[in-house]
């Protein structure tokens, strides 16, 4: 990657847990990771109500919303959040991803749940229960992040350069 940084932009990211999830280390970790990749982080912390997340998205206008959940309610709460978020016209184009331990049932149903969440409006789902486990999910998240920060970099070539202005 040396010498190929010209088009990489510094993303303004919003990191948050979900309303019923009290876990915090995942959010601390994501903040450090994003900051090390050169991005700016506003961390809403854990047990954040949907309304608080939507409010922060509207006022802070981030380039990316990162939802992390590890208490097993992510598939349920994450679905409710994204439906509410995509119902806001100004937020329809906001890139939003979700990851973590999203269900309570180990490895079952991860694929179907991810498809369900994506269909509801997430740009990507990084479920620990998916093929390859948490490490693979993290790698896919890093690839997603690099693509978003550098759409011309051509790492995967599958993503559009979406931002809050794209559909607002």
């Amino acid at each position, binding site marked *: 990657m040396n010498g190929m940084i010209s088009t990489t932009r510094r993303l303004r990211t919003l990191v948050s847990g979900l309303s019923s999830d009290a876990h915090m280390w995942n959010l601390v970790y994501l903040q450090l990771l994003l900051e090390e990749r050169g991005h700016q982080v506003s961390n809403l912390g854990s047990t954040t109500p949907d309304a608080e997340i939507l409010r922060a998205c509207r006022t802070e206008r981030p380039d990316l919303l990162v939802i992390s959940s590890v208490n*097993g309610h992510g598939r349920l709460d994450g679905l409710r959040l994204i439906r509410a978020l995509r119902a806001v016209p100004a937020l329809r184009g906001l890139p939003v991803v979700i990851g973590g331990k999203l269900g309570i049932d180990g490895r079952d149903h991860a694929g179907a749940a991810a498809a369900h969440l994506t269909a509801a409006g997430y740009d990507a789902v990084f479920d620990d229960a998916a093929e390859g486990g948490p490490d693979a999910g993290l790698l896919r998240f890093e690839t997603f992040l690099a693509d978003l920060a550098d759409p011309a970099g051509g790492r995967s070539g599958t993503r559009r350069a979406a931002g809050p202005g794209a559909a607002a």
Partner: protein
Amino acid sequence: MDGTTDRFTGFVRRAHDAGHLVVQPRMGFGELHRMRAGLRAVRDADATTVGTVTLDSYTRCHEDGAALRALRERPADLNGFPLLAHGVPAVRTLLQEVASAGFPVQIRHGTPRPVRLLRAMAEAGADATEGGPVSYCLPYGRVPLARAVAEWSAGCELLAARPVPPHLETFGGCMLGQLCPPSLLVALSVLEAVFFREHGLRGISLSYAQQVHPGQDLEALAALRRLADERLSGTAHHLVLYTFMGVFPRTGRGSRRLLADSARLAVRGGAERLVVKTPAEAHRIPTVGENVAALAHAARAAEAEAESAAEAAAGSAEGAARWSPTESGLYEEARRLVDAVLEPGGSVGACLLRAFARGILDVPYCLHPDNANRSRATIDATGALGWSRAGGMPVAPAPTAAAAPVTAGQLTELLGFNRRRYDGRSPDAPYGRAS
């Protein structure tokens, strides 16, 4: 034992007098029949047990509608027991069927705004619960600390007004589950217990969570006992140890060794009760069978430890050294924190608010808006937890503490310390030499 001593306090005391460590699972299911079956299985386990009903996170967060909907539509997806969705009469019946003086039940929740839950628990006849104004607020999101202090004050008084006030356990010794230096855990546990007593409760236990170094944990348990005895006169208190609550080993062997070490630690450190984790923990919420197996495994390890208390823990000089209490001045540091918090006088709740506002208490890495989040913790060359940055607290950072901020990769290393050691060959090897 007088007529107002709760069944939980009495049971733990009798078990301790008889030489048994009380072991307890974490367990909560959505449906009544599964919860009942789970409690009975714990009661009948081959161990001295108390029961646990862990509430689901919708109920903890006062999302009653979501809890009710999940209970109706997808009860198996609930990550705990929806107390309010079932309603007090149904829960009272459940507890009457299962709980007794020989098997008291604790309801566990995790909410900074506990009044309505505490009222429902008391009305349903719960023997015990847990929490605290700091430990159930700071790690759990964004409710202002002042509001948590006010609600916990009211909640404790509500419990204290019952004919037989339930037992209440501090969660302050478990802050963030891992990577909080023990002196702060001990101080917070003591401060919450003093808060409980100030609001009229007498059956109290003080928690401490197993960290990364058995010798340091032994020093911490001794400090907790000494401070509790000094500051909680007039109460019937005991110590409860939690099996490591952080990133758990992936292998069955590693998790069983970590669990057995926590039982050994409880016995050596004089804790009366142990809250266990299971080998399934790294992957998902454990089943009843896995919980029962973990309880029995912990009970066997505790018995073996009690029988061979004089023997070296790991059968090696290295292991024996790690299992001797460190002498790092942990009691003095915890006492300094407690004294600095209570120094202005007035209510314990007001002192706590003031201390957090000034950074005299500062939980490392904690994102809550009322936490200064200027302190930082690390694991030192001996494998013990220590301060890398003190913030505004009256504690001493290690002289060799790295000045550079912790990176995401290093944080993962620190959080995964026990996983690596216990999944590896030799958990008693010093830091840096684990195979």
